[in-house]
Every structure is written in structure tokens, then in C-alpha cells.
């Protein structure tokens, strides 16, 4: 728990992710976006503080184009979001 706080304090940019080793990082962006909202939903359901989920938020904010994030946020609000959260 303190570990994740330390990581968030020292955050500079998204670290290398072995699941996405090539230059096309689209899936990295998508995966972290989904993971943030899934993490929030799971920790909310357990009643635990959702601060650790911020790691995923920092990563997708670093990697994803802003227009994509805005489009997905609108889709989530309308209920059109294509991913499984």
C-alpha cells in the first residue's frame, strides 16, 4: 500500500510493459483504461479505498491520446462503451 504511494510519488512516465513490447501501444492504452475502471469498480464493491487504482490512471493518461479518453468517457456516460468493465 505504501509501496504504491511511493510509486505514484516517483512516477515519471509509463514503464515498459512486457505484454506490449512493440511500437504499437494502442492495446496498452486500452488495457490500462479498462483496468482503471475495473479496479475502481472492484475496490468500490469491496468497500476499500480506491487510491491504488490511480496507477492505471496515470499510465493511461501518459499513453492515450486525449481525444480517445474523452470519447471513451462520453461513451461510458451514455452506456455505449464497447469494453467490459
Amino acid at each position, binding site marked *: 500500500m505504501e509501496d504504491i504511494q511511493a510509486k505514484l510519488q516517483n512516477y515519471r512516465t509509463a514503464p515498459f510493459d512486457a505484454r506490449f*513490447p512493440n511500437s504499437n501501444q494502442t492495446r496498452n492504452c486500452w488495457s490500462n483504461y479498462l483496468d482503471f475502471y475495473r*479496479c475502481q469498480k472492484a475496490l468500490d464493491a469491496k468497500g476499500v479505498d480506491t487510491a491504488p487504482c490511480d496507477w492505471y490512471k496515470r499510465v493511461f493518461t501518459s499513453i492515450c491520446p486525449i481525444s480517445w479518453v474523452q470519447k471513451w468517457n462520453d461513451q461510458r456516460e451514455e452506456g455505449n462503451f464497447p469494453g467490459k468493465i
Partner: protein
Amino acid sequence: MLWVIAKQLKSHPALIPLFVFIGGGAAMSIAYLSRLALRNPDVSWDRKNNPEPWNNMKPDQQYKLFTVNMDYSKLKKEGPDF
């Protein structure tokens, strides 16, 4: 048809390298395409039971064939579990 080819090869042995190189090239293409189809973590054959196969990888698992500057043994899982 294979027997016709074998007969022609016996009378024109210079054609053998042609078969070797074309065959080798075809084998390499098929091998790479099957590696992509079966091992690539972006490919999901069974969407119901394995919808996000990239999540099944370990944080230090290497998919690329050659990595020049990346030390995979030092990687750990970054994000928190939930």
C-alpha cells in the same frame, strides 16, 4: 505429379537448389504465420473463455525473438491487484 518432378530433377539436377530455396522460404513463412496465429498475445481464438490473452502473460515473459537492450529478468508487475 511428384513422380514427374522427381524424374525431371534426375535429368536436370541443377534444379535442386531452386526447390531447396523456394521450399525453405515457404516453410519459414508458414512457420512465422503460425507463430503469430498461435502465440501472439493479441490473438484470441476463444472469446468466451479467453477474452484478453495479453493478460495471461507474466510481467517478465518475453514474446519477441530478439531483444537488444531490455533485461527481462528485472521486470515486475507494476499496477496494483484488484
